[in-house]
């Protein structure tokens, strides 16, 4: 064989080996004469390139497989349901969480249109329209949003869901990734919070327990099927159960019931929340724990109402139809709500007790004021009797003054027992009564000396109203006694107001003959003026006397 033939055979063999997949095969090109060396080198280099490409391709494929595996494990291990839908709405990816959430296996849903799998029929039309838009633009009413919707489980149950949808473009076609979360727990928790809030609000707002029970029933209905609901409270005096709230499709309120062997009594005895299915009922009946009372229910759920550590009653819901059953979760929830209801009942009972006690105390206080006023009236009458028997004008005058002072005090007690507010005295009404009383005592005709009262919205507690009353009484009496001698006509005015700093100003003024120069209340020897001076001190106030025009006394406290 010629050398050239051998080289050609070598080169053909190299091509066949590379074609068979052995990309590492080479020839000793440099041992060949030209131009075979170039041919050999070229084939060697091509082999090198194919080998390199093959290694790179393997790396890329491995990388792709790794990514695919990563994507799959992320999707499959996700807590939320993840699905990928093509632009026609058919399902391409359906993870384990989706299977758990909706009850369909991946094989059952793959390639099917999404709305037929878990969307309620009321959404179908919207989904159809949405996908038509999505197909063209990658946009739609749910794209890029997180929405709360309802979905349907394979078993037909409706589930509240949170759905987030995003759009992706693959080979110029739009696809959507949906992440779906079951928000039943969240919804339940929100409903529970709302129910507890309503119960708490009602505890404060409702007038009595019966009104509260009605709101409790409505609140529980938001959480559980509770068409049949009753509250049984034990009355230890009569040893009966009373049913202050009873709503039932099969039965009327049975009225007070002696303790028997019903389920209500069983929960009352054991102090434990109880869920009774027909099987549990038979078992308890067999054990002699209970006996049938009232129409038979499918499920019965009762919880003890424990107030201050003592069981005061039982709260119950029950169903008479197969479709309405209670779960152990419902039992927990109902037990928890009953605890809150017990607290509300306790709060309401405490509130009622406080209100009753307060009403009793108010009544007692009014009675005390009434009795004081009556006693003052007796003292005043005694002084009156005494003055009618006295002959000395000075004695009569002194007795009258004393009587006037005592009646000023009596008036306050009269006002208080007639008033709704036992803590504060309405000075406007009080001064009006006081002025009328003093004018009548001094037998002063209003046509000769009149009075004006300008006191509005001034309310003072007893401790300050009483000294105020006595001061006014003394100063009006003083004006009437000395300010208008003979037939002199004029007016007495009483003004009182509070400034922004809650300081009070009381002004008693007349337009009579005025007071002698150099006279002052502090230096006055009369009992009345000394009393005024002391009372101003008692009020921690100041007194200003102005005699430029009649008499004007200003007291600030």
């Amino acid at each position, binding site marked *: 064989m010629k050398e050239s033939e051998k080289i050609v055979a070598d080169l053909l063999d190299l091509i066949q080996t590379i074609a068979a997949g052995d990309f590492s095969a080479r020839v000793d090109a440099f041992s060949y004469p030209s131009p075979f*060396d*170039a041919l050999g080198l070229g084939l060697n280099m091509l082999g090198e390139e194919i080998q390199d490409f093959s290694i790179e391709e393997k790396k890329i494929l491995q990388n792709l497989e790794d990514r695919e595996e990563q994507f799959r494990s992320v999707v499959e291990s996700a807590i939320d349901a993840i699905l990928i839908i093509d632009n026609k709405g058919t399902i391409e990816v359906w993870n384990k969480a989706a299977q758990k959430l909706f009850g369909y296996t991946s094989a059952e849903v793959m390639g099917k249109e999404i709305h037929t799998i878990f969307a309620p029929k009321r959404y179908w039309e919207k989904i159809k329209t949405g996908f038509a838009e999505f197909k063209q633009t990658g946009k739609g009413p749910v794209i890029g949003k997180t929405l709360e919707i309802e979905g349907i489980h394979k078993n037909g149950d409706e589930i509240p869901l949170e759905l987030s949808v995003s759009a992706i473009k693959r080979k110029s076609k739009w696809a959507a990734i949906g992440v779906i979360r079951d928000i039943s727990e969240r919804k339940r928790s929100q409903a529970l919070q709302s129910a507890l809030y309503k119960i708490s609000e009602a505890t404060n707002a409702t007038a009595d327990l019966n009104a509260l029970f009605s709101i409790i029933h409505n609140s529980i209905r938001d959480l559980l099927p509770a068409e049949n609901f009753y509250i049984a409270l034990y009355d230890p005096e009569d040893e009966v159960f009373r049913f202050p709230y009873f709503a039932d499709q099969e039965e009327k309120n049975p009225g007070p019931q002696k303790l028997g062997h019903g389920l209500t009594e069983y929960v009352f005895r054991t102090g434990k929340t109880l869920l009774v299915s027909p099987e549990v009922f038979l078992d308890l009946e067999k054990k002699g724990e209970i006996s049938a009372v009232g129409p038979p229910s499918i499920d019965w759920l009762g919880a003890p109402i424990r107030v201050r550590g003592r069981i005061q009653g039982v709260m119950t819901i029950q169903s008479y139809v197969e479709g309405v059953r209670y779960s152990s979760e419902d039992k927990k929830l109902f037990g928890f709500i009953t605890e809150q209801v017990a607290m509300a009942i306790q709060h309401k009972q405490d509130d009622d007790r406080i209100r009753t006690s307060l009403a009793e105390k108010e009544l007692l206080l009014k009675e005390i004021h009434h009795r004081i006023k009556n006693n003052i009236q007796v003292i005043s009458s005694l002084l009156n009797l005494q003055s009618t028997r006295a002959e000395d004008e000075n004695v009569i005058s002194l007795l009258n003054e004393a009587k006037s002072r005592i009646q000023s005090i009596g008036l306050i007690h009269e006002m208080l027992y007639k008033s709704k507010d036992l803590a504060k005295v309405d000075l406007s009404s009080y001064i009006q009564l006081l002025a009328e009383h003093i004018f009548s005592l001094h037998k002063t005709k209003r046509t000769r000396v009149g009075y004006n009262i300008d006191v509005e919205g001034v309310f003072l507690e007893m401790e300050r109203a009483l000294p105020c009353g006595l001061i006014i009484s003394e100063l009006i009496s003083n004006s009437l006694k000395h300010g208008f001698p003979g037939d002199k006509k004029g007016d007495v005015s009483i003004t009182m107001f509070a400034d922004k700093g809650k300081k009070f100003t009381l002004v008693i003024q007349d337009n009579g003959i005025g007071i002698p120069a150099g006279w002052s209340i502090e230096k006055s020897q009369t009992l009345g003026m000394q009393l005024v001076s002391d009372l101003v001190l008692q009020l921690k106030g100041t007194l200003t006397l102005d005699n430029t025009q009649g008499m004007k006394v200003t007291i600030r406290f």
Partner: protein
Amino acid sequence: MTTSKAIRIIETSSAKNWLREDGIIQSIDYSEHSTPEQAWENLSAMEELSSGRKKPVLVDITRVRSIDIKARKLYASEKAAKVLSAVALLINSPLNRVIANFFLGINKPPYPIKIFTSEKDATTWLTSFIEK
């Protein structure tokens, strides 16, 4: 035959590289089998000669009998494109034509490249790539 004077010369383990007065870098590869390490050395030398501005390069591969695939990839890389504005490959045999042809196809670099058998023609072509 080189007609332009050398301004600066850098010799590597496998090649002589110099910057010519006309702004062209010229390189003569003396290695029979060019390795990636040698390719790296040569590219670094050209980078130094270019002083941060891309230069046209005339590479004489008449003595080269093979270039390793990694070396080929390095010459065709983005790193090389940052230094070289164009490359003229000077050949004189079917063997180095085969090598040069790989740079026109499979290992095509991101800069203009052409094969010449005459240094003069190569210089003429490269002149258009000299930055003024």
